[in-house]
């Protein structure tokens, strides 16, 4: 380049195409970070694997007689899938707090692009990363007696993606006002454990005491776990009375919710949380 050649001012145009580019690059960064961070990749798999193979095997030998024909590990498999996705999605959302601490959030927030594009990119990125992590668990299906059927795999993938998106939106909303990682992880632990315990990931939703039934029904995560369980049991051959015990679905005052309705609930919650997160980010700075 010669010294006389002066680079002209070239202003970006803005508009929808620009927002789409912003969504895509925020999403891509999320994926890059995930692929580069091997520690996180391994560590967020440890917990689900412990639950599935250690707790599942240990507890399974106790409850073997209560559920004839079904391995306890097969039963908790969809729950463990959900757990994997949720933990990874929350971690992704938590990176916002990290970005704030290290200044990068500022680079994003001062850009001439809508806050909505940034939040959507973040949530989609978190959802895809979490689903990718779920795929690792999905690959272990055969080890716990779940068949590798293409239909089942596709259904589970779609359901994981939806659940992950909603959880990332939740995490993003949570992270929006937070200034340090410790606080975020503290709150994250406080939110995740009860949600998993009350979701039917570890035990069937049938014949619960009234108080526990109410708590499971108001827990949003329940609506993400049940469709996965329905999908898995749809591909198993199980005695009807065992099926009724292990896969009773979610009931509202005796009405059993159809799977599509549960998915719509998850999607609606996700959409609402996303809107709230966007609004929250519009107000900052």
């Amino acid at each position, binding site marked *: 380049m010669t010294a006389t050649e002066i680079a002209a001012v070239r202003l*970006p145009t803005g508009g929808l195409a620009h927002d789409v580019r912003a969504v895509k690059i925020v999403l891509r*960064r999320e994926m890059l970070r995930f692929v580069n961070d091997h520690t996180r990749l391994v560590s967020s798999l440890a917990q689900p694997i412990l639950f599935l193979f250690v707790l599942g095997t240990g507890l399974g030998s106790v409850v073997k007689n209560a559920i004839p024909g079904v391995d306890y590990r097969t039963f908790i498999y969809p729950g463990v899938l959900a757990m994997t996705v949720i933990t990874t999605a929350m971690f992704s959302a938590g990176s916002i707090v990290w970005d704030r601490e290290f200044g990068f959030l500022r680079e994003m927030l*001062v850009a001439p692009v809508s806050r909505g594009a940034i939040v959507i990119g973040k949530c989609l990125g978190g959802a895809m990363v979490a689903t990718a992590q779920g795929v690792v668990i999905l690959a272990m299906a055969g080890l716990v007696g779940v068949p590798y059927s293409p239909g089942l795999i596709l259904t589970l993938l779609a359901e994981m993606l939806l659940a992950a998106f909603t959880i990332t939106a939740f995490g993003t909303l949570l992270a929006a006002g937070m200034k340090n990682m410790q606080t975020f992880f503290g709150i994250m632990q406080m939110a995740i454990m009860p949600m998993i315990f009350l979701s039917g990931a570890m035990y069937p939703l049938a014949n619960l005491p009234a108080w526990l039934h109410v708590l499971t029904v108001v827990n949003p995560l329940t609506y993400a776990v049940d469709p996965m369980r329905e999908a898995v049991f749809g591909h198993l051959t199980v005695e009807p009375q065992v099926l009724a015990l292990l896969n009773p679905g979610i009931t509202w005052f005796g009405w059993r919710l159809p799977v599509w309705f549960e998915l719509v609930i998850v999607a609606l919650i996700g959409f609402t949380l996303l809107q709230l997160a966007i609004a929250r980010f519009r107000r900052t700075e």
Partner: protein
Amino acid sequence: MNAVEVAGLRKSYGKVEAVRGISFDVAHGEVFGFLGPNGAGKSTTISMLCTLSNPTGGSARVGGHDVVKERDEVRRNIGLVFQDPTLDSYLTAEQNLLFHAELYGVPKSVVNERLRQVMEMVALWDRRDSKVSTFSGGMKRRLEIARGLLHSPRVLFLDEPTVGLDPQTRSAIWGYINELRRTEDITIFMTTHYMDEAEYCDRIAIIDHGEIVVIDSPEALKASVGKDRVQIHTSDDQAAIAALKERFDLDAAVHDGAVTFAVASGEEFVPRLFAGLGLPITGVSVHRPTLDDVFMNYTGSTIRDAEEESGGMNQMMRARLRR
């Protein structure tokens, strides 16, 4: 059209008035510097001009757009280099810039060419595939300057571009900024509390306690002071100040640990001083007017004195500005 137009701009945080109604214009193509001690209101002003915080009063236009009413327009027109780093250290230098290009909507057809241009300008092209976490402080700042230019803005804001860097790196950064003036159609607005850096500006605004004290070119400012600055070391500073007043009719004060005063021609005065002061002098120095003297002339204190005095307030401001 001026690149920046500011009229009666104010900012208060509760009862604290950080910026108290400042007005100035920056012409197209100019390098304009805000000079003042930490806590004088420099960063507050820059964050208002960059649409990061809303003014409490007054108005400002950047690149012809109102900073409050046309926020996105202003943002499209400006490049920003913050005091604190805002790079993703897990990504490579190139990935950081690509992220920026997408976020700012740089036309796809020019991204690669422009990327190379700005990275070569700051001599980081060879390091484009290195993770930013492996970069030194100076390299990070250079990368941020390149990033601020990537989308070819009309106005580049540099908030203390060399703070925390060693002298060698500082002068290298200034080399790049000077180079910019030749290669880019750009206006530069910067803040600094280093006097020697203010010399690089076309015009300087001296800001103190949230108000602009004076605006002019460095040369004109130095000429306006006119006098030389003499500093003497004595065993009894108070007696020396009294003697200077009594025998030479000079107003002296202690600054930076020495009795300091201004006289028309310092070298000629020193022999008279030794002969007539009546007190032993252990050391003497004579300075031609510098921006330090300009600053002292207009604000009544050296920039270092001012910083010590406002240290607490400055920390509070920084805490507020950091998010």
